């Protein structure tokens, strides 16, 4: 499971360092406590909050988050501990000795109510005009504690300006409750370090360096702060209005591509348990609300495997056979948060990034060229929308270089949350939608109708690597990947460990497939070599790996590394439904892997439409001239200096 990071956090926010006994059965390994006059035994070092939750005793929380280190600042979780003069924050109190705890006393109830009264008194605005209405932790607490009026008044004029400078993240500090979850996310979980508490006392607010607009600092747009904000203080920059206008405009041909992760998570926006894929339902809904065609980003994910895989083979060939200076390991470039992270923090390594665009941008370029031509539509009349689990995709489609079709390749990035909102606005209850027609045809529209399971698993950490391996193994060995990994499930790269490393010895080689025959004459140069790969998710882990590479450590010997900015990969993206926890991310990933196993085509190179597009349009093959123009890009050495 992903660990709670504590690298950057001030000590005040780190959990108590207790050497927990390996086994709670050992002497001194556990402690007997009494909660509300009932006896329990818990392992040494368990917090009061954990002890209560393990034993079904409810404690309200606000600044606590399962992914993050301790803060103990909101004081909503206070409890009474016998012998202590003051109330204790249960989230921050490790049990190291027998305690008697009361969670329901008058002082506790009153304190919690007071904390809420205080927070509400400066929580500007009204719930019904807030996007977090009905999914707000402050609102739920107010309901739980029966707040029916403002005991200490309610602020009538805003104190701060809304910062909507960023393409990705909008900050409305008037709704902030100073729980510092975003700070802990940004500094500690992600190690990006854009947000911190500024000023002190009543003037304390969460801000950026020099209180600059978000667009001017080194935000990577990962949106993890949004996912962990308990209120409406952080949200994504929402393009719904523009998209509705395009839909309502009969002259516009509105195209939508849907990434793999939203379909595995959108159910949560409709009150369902996490982990149910609603691919078919979502596609029906998309057509009903007025999108002209619905494409599957998994298609360009398959294309990415061709382009990125070919690029890797070319790099390896140039390095090993031609002995040229080549940037290795090659890094994946699908995650725009990761790309921007690298551009800022390790600009000297931008050459290691695969030049292949992300699936979203590849699709954008194809829609306004190949598709437009094929359908006889003027590309200027096409509005291209991408449903993504991601807030950084909004920035990505606005990068000035992403205009290779002659137009803005992708017009709008739409998050899972925003799409759910659009579906609701259209009066549709998604779980009740009929599934779109699947067999024998696809859910999705032609000419990109087919996508493989390999493209689908791009959504989870390790997925890009697994998809690449399914193809690369077969390309090189000429054998079925199933012969090596049962069901073609490449389990060594799966899971949630922050950094995963694997070695694949190449013992035998086959013939070079026709599609890339122009690149390498044979595979003999790979025989006996060991392919070293790594999978990394969360930029804090990326930092560790990059520092290792810089220091010439084991990761510098890798050939190919998958990096995802968000913990869990795209399924934990900054555009996904709120809340997020390790458990929820696990269920979403499972939904994706389950759907993958059920698909008839599970390898990118078996996607017949991809093969067709190389026959028909990108005729000089992967990494050829046209694909370079449309499907590849370049990066900017941004650096860390904030002007």
């Amino acid at each position, binding site marked *: 499971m992903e660990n709670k990071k504590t690298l*950057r956090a001030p000590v005040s926010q780190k959990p108590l360092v207790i050497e927990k006994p390996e086994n709670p059965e050992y002497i001194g390994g556990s402690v007997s406590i009494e909660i509300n006059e009932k006896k329990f035994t818990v392992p040494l070092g368990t917090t009061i909050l954990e002890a209560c939750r393990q034993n079904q005793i409810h404690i309200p929380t606000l600044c606590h988050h399962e992914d993050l280190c301790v803060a103990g600042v909101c004081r909503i979780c206070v409890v009474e501990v016998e012998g202590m003069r003051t109330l204790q924050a249960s989230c921050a109190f490790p049990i190291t000795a027998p305690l008697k705890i009361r969670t329901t006393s008058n002082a506790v109830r009153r304190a919690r109510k007071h904390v809420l009264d205080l927070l509400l008194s400066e929580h500007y605005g009204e719930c019904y005009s807030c996007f977090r209405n009905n999914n707000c932790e402050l609102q739920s607490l107010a309901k739980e504690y029966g707040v029916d009026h403002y005991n200490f008044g309610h602020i009538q004029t805003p104190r701060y300006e809304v910062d909507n400078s960023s393409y990705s993240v909008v900050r409305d500090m008037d709704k902030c409750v100073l729980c510092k979850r975003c700070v802990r996310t940004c*500094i500690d979980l992600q190690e*990006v*370090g*854009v*947000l*911190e*508490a*500024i*000023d*002190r006392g009543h003037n304390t607010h969460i*801000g*950026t*360096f*020099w209180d600059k607009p978000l667009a001017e*600092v080194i935000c990577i747009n990962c949106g993890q702060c949004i996912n962990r904000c308990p209120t409406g203080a952080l949200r994504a920059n929402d393009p719904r209005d523009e998209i509705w206008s395009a839909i309502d405009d009969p002259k516009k041909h509105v195209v939508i591509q849907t990434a793999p992760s939203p379909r595995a998570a959108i159910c949560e926006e409709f009150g369902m348990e996490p982990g149910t894929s609603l691919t078919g339902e979502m596609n029906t809904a998309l057509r009903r609300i007025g999108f002209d065609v619905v494409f599957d980003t998994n298609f360009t994910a398959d294309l990415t495997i061709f382009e990125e895989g070919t690029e890797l083979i070319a790099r390896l060939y140039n390095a090993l056979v031609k002995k040229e200076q080549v940037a290795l390991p090659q890094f994946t470039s699908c995650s725009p948060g990761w790309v921007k992270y690298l551009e800022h923090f390790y600009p000297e390594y931008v050459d290691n990034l695969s030049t292949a665009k992300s699936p979203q941008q590849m699709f954008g370029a194809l829609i306004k060229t190949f598709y437009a031509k094929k359908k006889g539509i003027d590309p200027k009349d096409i509005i291209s929308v991408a449903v993504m689990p991601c807030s950084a995709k909004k920035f990505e489609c606005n990068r000035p270089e992403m205009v290779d079709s002659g137009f803005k390749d992708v017009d709008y990035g739409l998050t899972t949350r925003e799409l759910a909102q659009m579906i609701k606005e259209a009066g549709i209850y998604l779980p009740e939608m009929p599934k779109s027609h699947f067999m024998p045809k696809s859910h999705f529209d032609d000419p990109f109708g087919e996508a493989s399971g390999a493209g689908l698993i791009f959504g989870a950490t390790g997925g890009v690597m697994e998809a690449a391996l399914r193809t690369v193994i077969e390309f090189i060995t000429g054998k079925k990947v199933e012969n090596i990994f049962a069901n073609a499930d490449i389990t060594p790269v799966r899971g949630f460990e922050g950094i995963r490393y694997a070695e694949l010895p190449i013992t035998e080689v086959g013939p070079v497939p026709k599609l890339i025959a122009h690149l390498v004459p044979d595979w003999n140069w790979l025989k006996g070599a060991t392919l070293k790969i790594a999978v990394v998710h969360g930029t804090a882990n990326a930092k560790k790996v990059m520092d290792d590479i810089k220091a010439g450590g084991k990761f510098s010997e890798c050939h190919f590394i998958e990096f995802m900015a968000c913990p869990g990969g795209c399924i934990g993206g900054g555009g996904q439904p709120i809340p997020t926890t390790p458990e929820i991310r696990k269920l979403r990933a499972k939904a994706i892997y389950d759907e993958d196993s059920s698909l008839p085509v599970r390898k990118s190179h078996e996607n017949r439409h991809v093969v067709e597009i190389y026959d028909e349009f990108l005729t000089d093959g992967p990494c050829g001239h046209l694909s370079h123009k449309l499907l590849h890009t370049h990066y900017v050495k941004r650096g*860390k*200096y*904030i002007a």
Partner: protein
Amino acid sequence: MLVVEKNALSEEIESYVNKYGNDRSALLMILHEIQKKHRHISEFAQQEVARLLNIHPVEVFSVISFFAFLNSNPKGRNLVRICQTISCDMKGKSGLVKAIERELGIEMGGTTKDNKFTVEYANCLGLCDMGPAMAINDQVFLQLTPEKAVELLGKVK
């Protein structure tokens, strides 16, 4: 900021880092030195400190914004702080404040046009037995009258 100035500032900060180390626990010492010399810690200086201590610029900015004696924006050449806490208040702090405001033509918190003075309130200078107290830069003056306070300001260069 000129490149030459930037380089000089970077070198200066590097010398502080050499003196106090590049651990985060050296941060406040380094900031003190910069503050003392330049009377503020500029945007560039903050980023240099962050770079050399391997922390994020916003962390430096956050710490500076927390402490009353560190500031990001320049103040006047001389910093005048008048204790506003109750003991000094009872001994006639408001008289002092009014006189100084009149004399310098600015309000508390302000800076004179010639950039010579910034006047601020301070929270308890720890001189409660000898109030009202006022600090000009790192010197303190006790048992002041409005007249004496103004006279003191006159002596400052």
